């Protein structure tokens, strides 16, 4: 990787050795300072989350009087009561609703975005440049300007207050970020693979399905994970489109339970349900961390 330049080798060597000694001494002090900053920072970053987990087991009076994480006693009643909610539906219903949106959305996204990315990455067609420019410009388009007409569109299709209104658009590769990310990955796969497959008599769709997709697995996993997280986090979409309580996903149900408990001060239940709401995302993140980091680093996806 490192290519040396045209210089006198002896001079470089002696200077480099000198530098090396100095650097080593500095390295220790440097590392110490860095660890100090990093540990302090990590505490500030993680303490709130850990405190929240601790608080979910605390009594309501203990929450606001103790700064510590560990509760005086472990009590699961906030979880049990929170799960049941004060309404006729439990969080089980809300989780089911979330998954009714999530699963089709992730599948649609994977299919539509990988096909589109394949088209852009491997074919030369009329107006390709212009189409690509449009794709990139949608990445920068503030979504706020599309909201009202999209709402009216679902209204006209009689799809308001259905889960479908939250996932149908994903069948049409509307998430430009994913398309862009997949195009980048396709470009990293050598074209010789396609060409040898053509010689073997594969058509372009067979190449896509049997040769390229298996190689794209890490990228596809990244797309699926990000879409999962974003859909789980999505609040405004369901807030606007979904109006019946029995169809609420977790995010809206949580908001509802905040409003419901603000009079009764059952804080620990709200906190317990917040933890439950975060759980799928946390589990997913820890089991597939590298895909997130790689995905974000290669394309600069927003988080």
């Amino acid at each position, binding site marked *: 990787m*490192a290519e040396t*330049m045209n*210089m006198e080798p002896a001079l470089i060597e002696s200077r*480099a050795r000198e530098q090396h000694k100095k650097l080593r001494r500095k390295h220790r002090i440097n590392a110490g300072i*860095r660890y100090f900053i990093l540990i302090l*920072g*990590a505490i500030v970053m993680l303490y*709130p*989350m850990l*405190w*929240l987990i601790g608080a979910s087991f605390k009594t309501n009076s203990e*929450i*606001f*009087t103790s*700064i510590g994480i560990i509760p005086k006693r472990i009590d699961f009643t906030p979880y049990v009561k929170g799960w049941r909610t004060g309404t006729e539906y439990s969080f089980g219903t809300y989780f089911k609703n979330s998954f009714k949106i999530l699963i089709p959305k992730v599948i649609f996204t994977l299919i*539509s975005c990988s*096909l*589109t990315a394949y*088209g*852009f990455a*491997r*074919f030369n*067609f*009329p107006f390709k440049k212009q*189409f690509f420019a*449009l*794709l990139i410009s949608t990445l920068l388009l*503030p*979504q*706020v*300007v*599309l*909201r*009202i*007409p*999209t*709402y*009216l569109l679902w*209204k006209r299709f009689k799809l308001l207050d259905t889960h479908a209104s939250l996932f149908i*658009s994903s*069948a*049409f*590769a*509307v998430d430009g970020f994913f*398309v862009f990310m997949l195009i980048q990955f396709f470009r990293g796969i050598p074209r010789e693979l396609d060409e040898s497959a053509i010689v073997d008599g594969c058509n372009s769709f067979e190449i896509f399905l049997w040769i390229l997709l298996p190689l794209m697995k890490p990228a596809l996993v990244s797309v699926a994970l990000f879409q999962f*997280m974003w859909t789980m*986090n999505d*609040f*405004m979409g369901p807030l606007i489109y979904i109006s019946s309580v029995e169809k609420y996903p*977790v995010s809206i149900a949580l908001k509802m339970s*905040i409003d419901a408990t603000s009079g009764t001060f059952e804080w620990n239940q709200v*906190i317990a349900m*917040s*933890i439950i709401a*975060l759980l799928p*995302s946390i589990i997913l993140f820890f089991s597939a*961390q590298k895909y997130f980091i790689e995905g974000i*680093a*290669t394309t600069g996806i927003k*988080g």
Partner: protein
Amino acid sequence: MNKRRFDYMGLLYITPWIIGFLVFTLYPFVASFILSFTKYDILSPPKFIGFRNYIKMFTKDKNFANSLMVTFKYVVMTVPLKLIFALLIAFVLNFNLRGINFFRTAYYIPSILGGNVAVAVLWRFLFSASGGLVNQVIGLFGIDPVNWFGTPGPALFSLTLLRIWQFGSAMVIFLAALQDIPQDLYDAAAVDGANKFTVFRKITIPLLTPVIFFNFIMQLIQAFQEFNAPYLITGGGPLKATYLLPVYIYDQSFQYYNMGYGSALSWVLFVIIMIFTLLVFKSSDYWVFYSDVGEGGK
């Protein structure tokens, strides 16, 4: 690259995207522009009223003026602070350290979970006036408890803090860029006897400017559209001090069903975001440094 013949199969593959673009991007984009010149309450058909929505907004609507101010304040506070933190931690992490993965994860978690409603709940508790964690902690330093959500300045700042806390994704991008800077550049500088500060100023920063530029644009667009935090945490209050424009747009459009006025408001926000984005793009000639050094072949 040699010119190849057109392959129309490509068009077939991108058909889903073309339909999606026309139906879910272009159509709503044009439609909201047209709607912004109408009065439309959904029940009766839209009525064309010319520029009246816009005139009302800039002459009579006190909420709009307030929301605009608050939004600017929020963006000006949030975006630079978030980028500075992201950059700072990326520098600290970009070192041959043990446990770098642990720290990277620790810093990244808040930003991956950040959009979740649960995090907004968390924030309400952390900044609660009586006995919230933040007040307990600053109490240890002898600072009087702050009524975070009851005072305009601190309320807006608590939202800013939430977004700064989520600097992780910007940091990961910075870190990747830092690690992409070829070691031979640093070696060559060391041979030439450059000191650390010079290396930082002449090599590290210039090579980072493209990602700084990218992150800046993305964070700007995101910050202007902030909805969840003010809606869930402060509800726009106190005294509308956190009534960001997107929340006002939501209220007009989906609480009062003033779809025409809501569209006009969103178009104004859109134009503001575009102006800022263009300014950053224009300014990039002066401070963004492009080279193929960092590309690593091909």
